């Protein structure tokens, strides 16, 4: 039923987009779609029926559990805000001829479709089905990246598709391994996660290691883990900011979600002792390369994108620790990172509108008078930056601290290296923000820059996200904690 | 606060005020003798002070209240410091009077005001004097503190009174360590009272003067206070050396006889020490200002050596 509702809503919105003509109409459809999905997710959350076994959903390939619902909640919120944001943002893109009017339909169609696919991915029980949806998200989001009239965008999209898809193929091989393992254990092969996790303790270690390692390759590429992250900075930086927020806040989660799911299965077997160090190494390398790449970075959106890479590394490290508490904070970090990153990209988008060409090239010097011209965006970047480096009042502080605490009990050298890398990250962000935002034009040239009249729709998401972040960072509701605890329990950590 | 302590306050202040100008004159006399002159009378300093009191006070139009309060603060600080070093009679210490660190910092208080007064009028002589004075006092400070620490180390107390009591009880001759310390104390005395080879108290030559530069703008009764305070400072440092090294005759109980004896003994010992200072000054020449750090380094080395010997022995 729920599945049906989702598909119906999706179909209706696609149809509406097909018949509508203006940016506003199509955008409204997208907002409505995201709002409806969010309503469904909230209803599911409040109804207390979760986890929902397959037949209520409508097919044995789908199910809803807390982790899926958690991801869906995050995704729909970000999609909703991004859609609101896109209203003004896309208008601006059209005005400056960066986006053809003819491409509008494609843009919003892909947008609406992407949300549906992501929802279906998170509600998939069958891992192969999840894999397919994940593949589809790559393709559709690449379309959203490539839609701008610039060669660089196509280039970035191609990179994105190639690296992600090529790696995802290995993932599929891994899934085949998993399927075969399950068949050899129970006779009846399945890729349904709910079944796999029950059988997992019977799986032979060697096969599990192979399966996980291969699956990891693909999902690592989706979530921007070193050395598969290379597409990420370029795609995120080139995409329209509304899309960047989705890429960073939602699509990276798809990859991490896949890793978590499969890792939960691995966690039931002795293979986890072999695989945890592997994850730790990849995580550290990811954070390391991201941190060092951020230092000389002169492009704001690339900087934020590298910060995403860094946070994915942290998530991987948290996962490698493989304790329930660590998993708890990994989940928390997923949420914290998604919202923070979305707010950062939204603010960066406003700056992008203001300083137009300059942000896309590597010239810092043209950003000036930020506080006079775009105070909200400036504060958005500052507060978002403080949030992402783990300042208190923002949620990343706690997740970072507790992941570090857990890491400390696993490996001291890793802890020290990670702390140092996080320091470098913070410095790079701080260095960039301080050196750019303190630039003011001389009084005589002050009037050369005309302030971009930021539409309300682009401001509201930033403010909402900032409030949401402060709320998440200071108030821990009982519901939130039990919800996350349920996820940990369902993943059988 | 006992009667004997109040009595001590009075008697010590009176004694130090009375005898300080005398020692100044004696040093001058000795120096004159070594130069083959007859020199001024030993009471010349008293005459000078009396004369200055009769003169009018001249303030620079640029100067501020600093100039006006400095002489008072200066003499007050030095006189209080003098209370920390009993000349003839050592009572029981009250409320930390006699603390050796406080003594040092009371001298610093006087110096601080004096240096500011030097800067107050905007004259370059005053500025130069202040600058040099503060520099010198800064770099002699480690030596001073090490010597004081050595004293504390030897006498196991922070209080000058108790040191005197101990040394009076042990009697003369003092231990070898104390004699070594006395040499260091002597160097400190030379530096602190601005004497040759560090400073030349008798000249107003721009190249050599330090202390005199600072008081150049002072006049009349203010100048008298400044002169007097530097004499008192000399006396109290001399008393420190005398009563530590050759404490015989020092009164520890309050009877007329002991006090008279102590006073006479102190005057005698003081005269001898003043003579030594005069001779020492005559045998030296003023040192170039920037050669001083090496002199101080030697003094510092010397006093640290004492500490090391004392510690390891």
């Amino acid at each position: 039923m729920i599945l049906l509702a989702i598909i119906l809503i999706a179909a209706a919105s696609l149809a509406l987009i097909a018949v509508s003509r203006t940016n506003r109409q199509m955008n409204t459809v997208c907002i409505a779609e995201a709002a409806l999905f969010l309503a469904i997710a909230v209803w599911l959350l409040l109804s207390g029926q979760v986890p929902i076994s397959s037949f209520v959903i409508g097919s044995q390939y789908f199910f809803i559990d807390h982790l899926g619902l958690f991801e869906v909640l995050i995704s729909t919120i970000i999609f909703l805000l991004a859609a609101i944001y896109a209203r003004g943002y896309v208008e601006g893109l059209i005005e400056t001829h960066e986006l053809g009017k003819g491409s509008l339909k494609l843009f919003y169609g892909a947008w609406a479709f992407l949300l549906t696919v992501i929802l279906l991915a998170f509600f998939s029980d069958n891992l192969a089905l999840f894999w397919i949806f994940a593949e589809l998200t790559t393709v559709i989001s690449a379309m959203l990246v490539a839609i701008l009239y610039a060669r660089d965008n196509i280039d970035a999209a191609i990179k994105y598709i190639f690296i992600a898809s090529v790696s995802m193929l290995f993932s599929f091989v891994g899934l085949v391994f998993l399927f075969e393992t399950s068949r050899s254990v129970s006779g009846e092969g399945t890729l349904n996660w709910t079944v796999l996790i029950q059988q997992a303790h019977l799986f032979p270690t060697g096969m599990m290691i192979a399966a996980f390692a291969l699956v990891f390759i693909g999902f690592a590429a989706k979530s921007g883990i070193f050395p598969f992250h290379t597409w990420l900075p370029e795609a995120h930086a080139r995409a329209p900011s509304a899309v960047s927020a989705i890429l960073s806040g939602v699509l990276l989660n798809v990859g991490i979600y896949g890793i978590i799911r499969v890792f939960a299965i691995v966690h039931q077997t002795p293979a986890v002792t072999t695989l945890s160090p592997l994850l730790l190494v990849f995580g550290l390398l990811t954070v390391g390369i991201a941190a060092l790449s951020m230092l000389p970075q002169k492009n704001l959106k690339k900087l934020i994108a590298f910060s995403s890479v860094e946070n994915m590394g942290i998530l991987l490290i948290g996962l490698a620790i493989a304790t329930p508490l660590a998993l708890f904070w990994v989940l928390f970090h997923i949420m914290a990172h998604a919202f923070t990153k979305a707010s950062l990209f939204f603010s960066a988008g406003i700056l992008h509108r203001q300083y137009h060409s300059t942000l896309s090239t590597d010239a810092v010097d043209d950003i000036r008078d930020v506080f006079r011209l775009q105070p909200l965006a400036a504060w958005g970047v500052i507060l978002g930056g403080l949030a992402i480096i783990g300042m208190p009042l923002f949620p990343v502080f706690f997740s970072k601290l507790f992941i570090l605490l857990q890491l400390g009990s696993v490996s001291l050298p890793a802890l020290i290296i990670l702390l140092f890398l996080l320091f470098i990250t913070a410095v790079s962000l701080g260095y960039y923000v301080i050196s750019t935002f303190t630039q003011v034009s001389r009084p005589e040239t002050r009037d050369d820059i005309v302030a971009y009249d930021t539409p309300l729709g682009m401001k509201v998401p930033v403010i909402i996200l900032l409030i949401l972040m402060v709320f998440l960072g200071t108030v821990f509701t009982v519901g939130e904690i039990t919800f996350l605890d349920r996820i940990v329990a369902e993943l059988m950590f | 606060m006992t009667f004997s302590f109040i009595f001590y306050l009075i008697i010590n202040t009176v004694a130090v005020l009375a005898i300080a100008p005398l020692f100044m004159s004696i040093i001058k006399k000795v120096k004159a003798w070594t130069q083959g002159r007859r020199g001024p009378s030993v009471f010349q300093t008293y005459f000078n002070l009396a004369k200055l009191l009769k003169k009018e006070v001249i303030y620079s139009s640029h100067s501020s209240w600093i100039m006006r309060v400095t002489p008072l603060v200066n003499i007050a600080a030095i006189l209080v410091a003098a209370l920390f070093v009993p000349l003839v009679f050592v009572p029981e210490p009250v409320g930390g009077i006699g603390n050796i660190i406080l003594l040092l910092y009371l001298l610093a208080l006087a110096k601080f005001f004096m240096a500011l007064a030097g800067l107050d009028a905007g004259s370059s002589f005053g500025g130069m004097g202040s600058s040099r004075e503060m520099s010198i006092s800064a770099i002699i400070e480690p030596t001073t503190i090490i010597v004081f620490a050595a004293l504390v180390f030897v006498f196991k107390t922070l209080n000058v009174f108790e040191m005197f009591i101990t040394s009076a009880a042990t009697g003369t001759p003092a231990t070898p360590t104390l004699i070594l310390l006395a040499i260091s104390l002597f160097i400190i005395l030379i530096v602190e009272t601005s004497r040759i080879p560090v400073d030349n108290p008798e000249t107003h030559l721009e190249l050599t003067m330090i202390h005199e530069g600072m008081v150049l703008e002072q006049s009349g009764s203010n100048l008298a206070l400044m002169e007097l305070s530097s004499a008192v400072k000399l006396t109290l440092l001399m008393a420190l050396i005398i009563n530590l090294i050759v404490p015989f005759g020092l009164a520890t109980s309050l009877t007329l006889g002991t006090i008279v004896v102590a006073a006479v003994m102190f005057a005698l010992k003081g005269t001898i020490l003043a003579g030594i200072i005069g001779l020492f000054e005559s045998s030296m020449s003023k040192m170039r200002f920037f050669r001083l750090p090496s002199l101080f380094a030697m003094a510092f080395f010397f006093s640290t050596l004492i500490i090391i010997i004392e510690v390891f022995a």
Partner: protein
Amino acid sequence: MIVELFILSILVFFLGILVPLVTAARDQRVFRTAALGCTIIGSVVLGVLSLVILLTGQVFSWTIFQPFAAFSLGFSVDRLAAFFLLLIAAVSGCVALYATEYIEHLDGGSRRNLLCGCTNLFILSMLLVVVSANTVSFLFFWELMAGSSFLLVMYEYTGPDTKKAGIFYFVMTQFSTLFVMLGIVLLYGQTGSFSLAPAGISFLSTAAFLALLIGFSIKAGIIPFHKWLPYAHPASPSPISALMSAVMLKIAVYGLVRFLLDVFSPELWWGIVILFLGTASAVLGIIYALKEYDIKAMLAYSSIENVGIIFTGIGLYVIFTSYHMPGLASISLLGALFHSLNHAMFKSLLFLTAGSVVHATHTRDIEQMGGLVHRMPYTSALFFTGALAIAALPPLNGFASEILIFISFFSSVAVADPLLKVLLFICLALFALTSALSAACFVKAFGSVFLALPRSKESGEAREVPLRMLLGPAILAAACIILGVFAAQIFVLVGLSVPMPDLFLVGLLLLAMAVLTYAFLFFTASRDVRIAGTWGCGTPSQQPAMEYSGHGFSEPIDIIFSTVYRTKMKNERKFFDRKNCIFAEGTADISLMKIFEEYVYLPVARASYHAAKVVSRFQSGCLDTYLLYVFCTVIAIIIYLGWLA
């Protein structure tokens, strides 16, 4: 009652954050005054509360919020915390009073509202650091403090030096965070809990101590981590500099003391390390202060010196504790803590009055000032009190705390190890050098800023500042005098026996001597007074250019310590001919070399930037290369699977 008072004060501060935040867009004085009024009220409540706790010695602890079983957001106020609360309350109250007027003379329009709000946040986070009952809330508020102070430093973001200051401050703050976090994580590894409870002796706790020590040292501005101070303090508005220097540095001291007392069982070498750091900072700090001509940077360096003194006291405490000499240990610790309070008083006083001076003369360069004693009599008197206190002259408070440290130094006779004894004596000598140099430094400061003739047009036209900019510093000055003169009585009042001289008696004697002398002169000496020009060897009139400048004043010390001050000479010449014979024009510049900056900070920064550049080449922009990475990784993983797993 105490708890309610405490919550009340927190709420008042919170109100002080909200008011300007809500009214951020409206540039009206009333909102700012309201916000700062909240600060003052909150500080008064907090001050009363901490005094009560300090006197009664009760311990209050309560948990406000426990989201997980593992940790809670809890507060606990004991005497140590109350002491630092008092410090925070006293300084922030006076600073806020001063700022009500000062802030109206700042540029920035409605941004000033945010400044007020952020200041309140800063104060609130500092006081919550102090009352934190466990390491997580400690870290939480510590970070909040770092973040809010960073925003405050960046207030005048358009200023020429602010960018550099901001970057330095931000980097050092993060560096400090790194170590504090590491320390807390290691501690958690050792004890398995977040409580501030004894951790026992092990490799982990030693490592945790070292990490925390470095973290706190960075925040406290201990050399060689001090470089942010002389940049951040001049860049920020004066009330903020006062708060940062007087209070924030003390929070780091608090952290160190708290962890040393409650968590660690210190070993001898820890004490030696702290002592060494402290002494080095004290000496080098004041030596650099002497060469500084920016009045606020000079005060910043002097803060480094004073924190060095505090660390010296803490180091002595640790040494004596490890020798089981509790009496001496407590004197040293009391000295360190008392000096923290005293430094907070006189340094905020100095920063505030320096702020007034800068406000009046529009320059921070002391060579441009002079003669202000006639134009700003009250400010000069207040600054003078601060200078007397910081130069550790009796009977003011700076001396009262330094003498405690001197006493414990002098009593180190009792330490058994001869080698250590000698080491202590050497530290003592350096310590004495420090206090003498600081006297020289403040003679120079007061002399160049306030005395003689004005050296620039602006300082010639300076005016006395309004009443409220005098009132705040006046309270602090009074505190400086009271804390000094009645130091011994205060110790008795709180029930501590300390062998320190009675400064009240000394003060009385000083007064008596001065009065007696005055009376004597009044009756005997001539009362004629004449005003005349300064005698200048016959020059017709006194010119400002003839005065001794700040540079000139410190020249002898400059030469004496030439090994510490490295100068850098730049000499660029142009010639008319090829053979460099006919000189055309040229520039020469002799500047003080910033040794730490040029030999430590910048090389590290350059090296890491270089490394980052190398790593960035990984992101070459070529799809084929990226796919090759994937290919190689896949092969590596297959190798791993086939042979290693």
